[in-house]
């Protein structure tokens, strides 16, 4: 049964007969149960990997690595990649495991050698890194990544477009048949990183 507020016969119990009061109580219990179920379902949906969620792929990492060559001051050599994840979020940990598997002990892409450094979101300042990569599903707590990028003046990248659209991470990667790059200009400016103009001409600015 789906609870519909419009079905409630009486909106409050004031002035109701005992039968009406019992009916009101019954509806209230039903509403409470429905709210509880809804909350459980939502929580489960947030904590369970969505059927449509694809973990970070090797292609995502490859694109991210090559994007580093398009900054105004390109990094080279060993680049520590802070993989920012939430240990309590299965989506996030799935991304983190995937990235660790892809990067291994280091992955050479162009002029850089990407070295993975797992960073729990609650402990993001623990180890300094050269860039950070946000896993999917961090939600509002991703604001810590934005603050870290601004504090350390490092680039943040992610495949979680919601994080880029919310201004938590400068570069959002959307890779399907084609590659779409979304850049939040405010987050980019805050991290004091800039890209070549030619690259900026090819991306979607937010």
């Amino acid at each position, binding site marked *: 049964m789906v609870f519909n507020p419009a079905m409630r016969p009486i909106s409050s119990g004031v002035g109701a007969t005992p039968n009406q009061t019992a009916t009101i109580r019954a509806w209230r219990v039903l509403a409470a149960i429905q709210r509880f179920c809804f909350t459980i379902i939502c929580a489960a949906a947030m904590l369970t990997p969505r059927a449509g969620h694809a973990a970070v792929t090797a292609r995502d990492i*490859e*694109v991210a690595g*090559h*994007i580093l*060559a*398009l900054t*105004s*001051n*390109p990094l*080279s050599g060993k680049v520590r990649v802070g993989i920012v994840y939430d240990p309590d979020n299965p989506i996030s940990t799935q991304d983190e495991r995937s990235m660790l598997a892809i990067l291994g002990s280091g992955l050479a892409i*162009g*002029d850089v050698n990407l070295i993975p450094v797992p960073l729990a979101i609650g402990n993001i300042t623990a180890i300094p890194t050269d860039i950070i990569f946000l896993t999917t599903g961090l939600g509002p707590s991703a604001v810590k990544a934005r603050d870290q990028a601004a504090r350390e003046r490092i680039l943040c990248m992610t495949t979680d477009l919601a994080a880029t659209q919310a201004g938590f991470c400068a570069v959002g990667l959307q890779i*399907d*048949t*084609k*590659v779409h*790059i979304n850049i939040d200009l405010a987050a980019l400016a805050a991290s004091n990183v800039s890209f*070549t*103009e*030619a*690259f*900026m*001409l*090819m991306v*979607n*600015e*937010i």
Partner: protein
Amino acid sequence: MRLKLGIRLAATIFMTLSAAGFAQAQEVNYDALEQVFGEPVTTSATGLPQTASQAPAEMQIITADEIRRSGAANIPDILESVAGVDVRHYGALDSEVSIRGFSQAANPRLLVLINGRQVYLDDYGYVAWQALPVQLLQIRQIEIVKGPASALFGFNAASGVINIITYDPLTDKTNAASATIGTDGTLAGSLVSTINDPGKGGVTISLGGLKTNEYSTAHATAFDTTYSQPHSGNFNLDGRWKPTSRTEMTLELTRSTSTSTEELPPYFDSTAGYRENSIKLGFAADTEFGVATVQGYTNQSSTSLVSYADGTSVLAEQIDDIEANDLIKIADAHAIRVALEYRDNRAFGVDYQGASGYQDYAASVMWNWQINPQFALTTAVRLDHLSLSRNDPLSSLDRYSLADYQNKSISAPSFNAGLVYQPDDADTIRWLLGRAVQAPSLVDFGQDIQRDGVATRILYAGNPDLQAAATTNYEVDYDRVLPYLQSTLRTAAYLNQTRDILTSGTTAESSYRNGVVSAYAQNIGAGQVAGGEIGLQGANMSGLRWNMSYALAAVQDSTSSGPPQTPLQFDDTTPVSMIDFGLGYSWGKFEADMQGKWQSRYSDYRFEIGQTGAVYTPVTIKNFVTISARLGYQLTPRLTLALSGQQLQAGQTIETAGLEPQRRILFSATYGF
């Protein structure tokens, strides 16, 4: 003189930069952008860096891998696999390239550039492909824009543009050497080396040479066989330096020489010796006002022509060009490019009468509007103003006075507009409209060529009354990615119309009076091409790759109906149908590739000087097939051996009215270091 020009050019650029507040920018990091977006990136369609699939033009990009796998020894042979591109071999080193109709020897309608520098020769209006100062090993990609593109590149991009992009010494280390030996006395060598501090500065030096035997043929004229061993050599220095993280300077020096039989315009059998030099300086910067670029170059060429029809002559040409442009993104949806260009060119030679040239002032604006994620509209407009100049002496036979030449000017607008619709990642639809301008060549515009014929005196004269030819193109393209076939389907349908078609003195109607034959270059009427291309190209993970395309080009020519007339019938000079097909396979260290082409019949011409002037005899070229192939084996991580063959279908094939291409087998070793 060359030094003075170089100094003058450098000073001009420096002053321009100073005036601009030393702004400006970085050029395009092709490698990183291609790796990020998963497909080649180009600026040849609009000046804006775009992926090939986003460009508002029918464009094909040939990558370095495709160049290697083609086994070709020169650029025209690489272009043979492109739908709608007609490549003809008139000699062992002499090839002609046309796009989408009006095919002819020494095609004046195709603009060719190396890293944005014109290598098209303004003197006769054509490209000497054998004298291009670039090694195949140093080419990153060849960008082919089909259809008019004058609004970005200026004159002579009437049927298309080919822009050859080399590896960037700032970001790419290219160190390789190759040696080739082959049948018919073919010997070639090539060396490319880069010294760089990545991202800060670098220099690439390349040099190479080639010699081979000329095609032997039973149908050769006596002249065709007088030169038996064509050869070429060239040198290229490409330096780039970043004084700051947001600025970049470039310097390019080139020198090339070649001697070969050649079909000069229009259809002169000759031996052509080229000596070409160039210097290019550029400065670019990322600024708050966009990517600003200033670039200037000087081209010098000296062409020695030995022709049984024309005797011996030497023609020198110089082009000085400077361009400043700024490309800026406004908000997220708009990009605007504004440009100013000045060009001064002139041609002169002891066997020609006086020197002729023109100064061209041009301004252009390009606006790219990303209307929404699915639609993008690009509009570009350019205005050229050309003033003809001419020095003494005139031929005594010329009907024009010096003042007629000196007072001539042409103002010509050109434009390109393209609406690109990408409803999803798989589909792209383009609606294109463009107008391009072809300037008269310097010889056609203002030179007199006076000769003594068999029983007459002959004057082929420039005509200051010539108008620029204008080509308007209407086009619809549809591309679709087909994941289940691991292929991409590309289709295009177009109609292009040209008015005021230009022809040189020899192909224009001549008059005979008092023992003198005289003929002036002419605008000879209009013509149109209706056609299209459909092609499928793909590859799978097992290493298999394939391509197949069909191109249709039906030319309708009204140049021969009523005076002025020409003996050339353009509606018969282009094959109506061409089919390209290719198959390749990579397996471990092996690579095997085959490329073929079939084309329908067409008419070519054989030229002779008769009693009363030029005589053009049409020669029907029957449909034919050409096949080329390459087998490559990577012996060590650094050393690759390859066996390749051109014209494998027969010992000899009649492709043109000139010499007949022969089967050639080449063995090469390439060492990367």
